[in-house]
């Protein structure tokens, strides 16, 4: 089987009937990127990288709380991510010095999550799955959750697209046009929490914000409009997922980090290719 993979370049072209777990993994990654591409563009435009970090790290706390209280993990993750994202939104909209507070929050959330998870013995042995994801064990139920979450996020972003963009360009301009920038911020907060809850299974708490930021940043060099950048971010993200999975399968490397490595390589390539300064 390994020989068959090594003779080809991509999973898609590989064989007519690839293994189910690989198909699941590819579908999960592509589903995530459908939502993470456009949302990641907003994270880059609005300089919300730290906010993404804080929310993603808090997801670990969500996992711990869900396991300790027998709630579904996805639900617990989504709720805690939403709570932290809301807290961060409130803090970061006050003033620009929030950068430090966000840095504090992002890393404390991770530490507290790790401490909390140590109280859930059944996870202790499997901690790396939550830190770095476990895309190769995605089940059909996981897929339904991933695609459902991604569809909600995409729907939210599509519904508010022009308002979100206007508020991103200039909040006063949005206000003068009768929009409420606070509402648009909240839309992004909810979308971020959902993407985090979806992504933790795929790339893990530590690398979620990479899947938001790296494809979008790579897309910048090739885009002339916001829509173009969101679309190219999706494409680069999907390419990273497939290339990462292929690499993981071929060289027996961890899948989540391999996907992010592929994204980082594409980003480096975009820097070399893109003439425009980012």
């Amino acid at each position, binding site marked *: 089987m390994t020989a068959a993979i090594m003779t080809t370049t991509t999973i898609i072209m590989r064989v007519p009937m690839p293994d189910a777990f690989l198909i699941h993994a590819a579908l999960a990654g592509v589903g995530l990127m459908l939502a993470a591409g456009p949302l990641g563009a907003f994270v880059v435009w609005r300089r919300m990288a730290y906010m993404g970090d804080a929310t993603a790290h808090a997801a670990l706390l969500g996992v711990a709380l869900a396991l300790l209280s027998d709630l579904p993990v996805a639900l617990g993750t989504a709720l805690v991510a939403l709570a932290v994202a809301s807290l961060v939104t409130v803090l970061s909209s006050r003033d620009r010095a929030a950068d430090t507070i966000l840095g504090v929050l992002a890393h404390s959330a991770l530490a507290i999550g790790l401490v909390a998870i140590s109280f859930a013995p059944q996870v202790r042995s499997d901690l790396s799955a939550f830190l770095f994801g476990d895309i190769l064990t995605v089940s059909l139920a996981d897929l339904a959750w991933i695609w459902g979450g991604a569809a909600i996020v995409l729907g939210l972003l599509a519904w508010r697209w022009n308002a979100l963009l206007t508020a991103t360009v200039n909040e*006063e*301009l949005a206000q*003068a046009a009768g929009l409420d920038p606070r509402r648009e911020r909240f839309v992004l907060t909810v979308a971020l929490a959902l993407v985090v809850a979806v992504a933790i299974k795929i790339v893990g708490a530590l690398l979620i914000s990479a899947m938001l930021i790296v494809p979008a940043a790579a897309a910048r060099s090739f885009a002339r409009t916001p829509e173009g950048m969101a679309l190219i971010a999706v494409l680069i993200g999907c390419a990273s997922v497939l290339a990462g999975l292929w690499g993981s399968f071929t060289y027996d490397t961890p899948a989540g980090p391999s996907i992010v490595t592929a994204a980082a390589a594409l980003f480096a390539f975009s820097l070399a290719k893109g003439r425009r300064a980012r």
Partner: protein
Amino acid sequence: MWRPWAFAPPAAGCPMPLIEAQGLGVRRGSHDILRGVNFRIAGGEIVTVLGPNGSGKSTLIRALIGLEPGSSGAVTRKPGLRIGYVPQRLHVDAALPMTVRRFLSLPRPVSDAVAAEALGRTGVAGLERRQVSALSGGQLQRVLLARALLSAPEILILDEPTQGLDQPGEAAFYKLLEEVRAETGAAVLMVSHDLHVVMRASDRVICLNGHVCCEGTPEIVSAAPEYRALFGMGTGGALALYRHMHDHDHVHDGCDHDHDHHHHEGADA
């Protein structure tokens, strides 16, 4: 208090003010930014709010638009008033790719023809495919004005519209505003922190420093003692420039402006 300049005639033929403020006060924390401001602007008027930094000009504008709640007094806007707003600063981050054409369709989509017409109107035709973050200061102001015109506004509100422009650019921009007013009949309310050529384009000037110090036609305000106290003698050169460009047959109204006069002669020579 007797203030003769308070009775400067508003634009005739429009009894209903577009925006009116009565006793408006804005307080932030324990600090009064504005207090007891009475203001009105009627259709077709060009009104400039002048004041030093920190005098509450931008706050007044924001309160009039409804972006900032007042803590006392009242602001009344004509029902359904269409406002075209040009913000003080528009910094489009280089991380956000945005063509001028796309920008004009925010938040409401407009057709290519309408977008091209608006750009043509403000003297920046053909910029559609340029990136907003790569525009010069003057181009950006004109694009912002074009965008503000898309909603067929009854009033244009501009917060320090010529920041970062050189003086010819500034003069050209005010001329453009006058043309737009003449064509569309839209009132214009703008903010400036200094004189320069802004007065030339204004029907009425309001001098602000937490409260309304003085108001009236540009000539009246520039001669008012309150105005001089606020801006000091440092504006002599700007006054001279204003007079020079504005009106060579300017009738001196008996106020003390030897200094200005001196510059005036110099400029004419």
